[in-house]
């Protein structure tokens, strides 16, 4: 992706765990297409996986009537991944800090933290119904 064009893909996925793998595979492909090295691409794919898992498990609660939307964009200097569910939504400002001593030994609650750690931008948007999360990583970010 050094010619200034942008590559895009949009998918509608079932609310099932194989969709999480589909998102991961496409995320790594688009990250590499944007020019990220293998390690960074793997981290991007991992957090895309977290977003997809949240959509399937917490957003849609595995409801077969609900779907997960996944959108990928690779340009010459960045990758964008957008995941949306059709659930009841959640308050992204009210996520417990997984680094707080009282939360360190919790078995869950690190997904959004990892997204913020590995991506340059993480945005949440409430849909009706659902939640959309946008992950952006720039090569010079």
């Amino acid at each position: 992706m050094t010619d200034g064009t942008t590559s895009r893909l949009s998918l509608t996925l079932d609310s099932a765990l194989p969709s999480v793998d589909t998102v991961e595979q496409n995320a790594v492909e688009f990250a590499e297409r944007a020019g990220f090295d293998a390690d960074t691409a793997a981290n991007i794919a991992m957090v895309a996986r977290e977003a997809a898992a949240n959509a399937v498990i917490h957003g849609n609660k595995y409801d077969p009537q609900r779907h997960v939307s996944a959108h990928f964009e690779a340009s010459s200097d960045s990758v964008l991944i957008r995941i949306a569910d059709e659930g009841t939504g959640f308050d992204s400002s009210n996520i417990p800090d997984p680094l707080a001593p009282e939360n360190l030994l919790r078995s869950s609650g690190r997904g959004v933290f990892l997204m913020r750690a590995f991506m340059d931008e993480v945005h949440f948007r409430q849909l009706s119904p659902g939640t959309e999360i946008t992950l952006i990583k720039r090569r010079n970010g």
Partner: protein
Amino acid sequence: MAMKFKTRQVDGVTILDLSGRITLGEGSVTLRDAVQDAVSKGEKKILLNLANVDYIDSSGIGELVSAFTSVKNTGGELKLLQLTKKVHDLLQITKLYTVFDVYDDEASAISSYKA
């Protein structure tokens, strides 16, 4: 690659040699079952060899924490051996590196249970 494991005993320590991915779904469940199996047999000294675990997600991290807690609650100790860079970095970022007792070589890990 889905997670696989082999179990061996060295000087009274149960070593689980894990390989593959510890991720949401099968990998996390396999790890949970492996540790619970050891705990149910009364094993108190459990060492997870992560040398061949090349990928872990937040679900896998959560499963490591759950394993640590469940072994501790039975009076045992769960320690980690030979982290790959990826797993090491994730445990650092999540501040769990200080929670787990981590070793680079097996002999040192085995001796630590005698201390």
